[in-house]
């Protein structure tokens, strides 16, 4: 029998792997991938709790909203990454430390 705790532990593992990617990677695309992993863990939590909410279907509805928000975030983030690459010729976040032109 799969209980709620199974889902929560799996999503905690995925969330912490994403957290590690955000903290340790020296490449902006991999940091974005880490953020995507963390959003996926949050969506898994939404869906696992939404199983118990038959009246409002809140978990599944907000899981879809979270997927849409993640897609919007990744589109804007990749546009910013391409601009930064065009400007600095690198996407290592440690080399990008000037706001001025």
């Amino acid at each position, binding site marked *: 029998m799969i209980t709620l705790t199974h889902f929560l532990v799996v999503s905690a593992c995925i969330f912490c792997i994403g957290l590690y990617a955000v903290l*340790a990677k020296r*490449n902006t695309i991999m940091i974005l991938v880490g953020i995507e992993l963390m959003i996926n863990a949050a969506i898994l939590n939404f869906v696992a709790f939404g199983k118990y909410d038959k009246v409002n279907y809140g978990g599944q509805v907000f899981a*879809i909203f979270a997927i849409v928000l993640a*897609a919007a975030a990744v589109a804007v983030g990749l546009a910013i990454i391409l601009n930064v690459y065009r400007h600095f010729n690198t996407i290592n976040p440690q080399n990008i430390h000037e706001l001025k032109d």
Partner: protein
Amino acid sequence: MMIESLLFYAFAALAILSALLLVHIRNIARALFLLFIVLFSMAGLYLFALADFIAITQILVYVGGVLILLIFAFMLSNKELLDDLQSSSKRFISLPNWQAIILALAFLSLMIYSYISWAQDMPEWISQAEAKGRMILPTDNNIKILGFKFMTQYVLPFEVISVFLMMALIGAAHLSRKESNK
């Protein structure tokens, strides 16, 4: 029952192991293809929480849209990346990012400890839903109910999020265009 939990453990192990390999591997292109596997197995896990529409949306939006976008961004910023990989691989092989590992492991142990200690007493609304049988069942027509919910109860957030998505996509297209008049 037996095969259900077996499949659940298989999907969970696939997701966690390929995510671990994703953050370990140095080649960005291989890491992005491992993200493909992670997203597919997460969609499989959503199926076990009886959210079939969410799983299909995950495959459509993430695998079809976000991952292709990430691969495009990787290929458009490729030249510098290869130099970066070669120059830094020697220096960091002896010293892993131990601060990040410690922080992530501490957060993981905190969350798992709280889940284990919380598992004995569920919140009241969950135990009530279990007692009264108000859970989502595998025989329910989820997609139909979800469509009704989107058009009746959640119609305002639905419209707001669609306008937000349009704004974000127009903004992204505006940001990433070539600047000609300069």
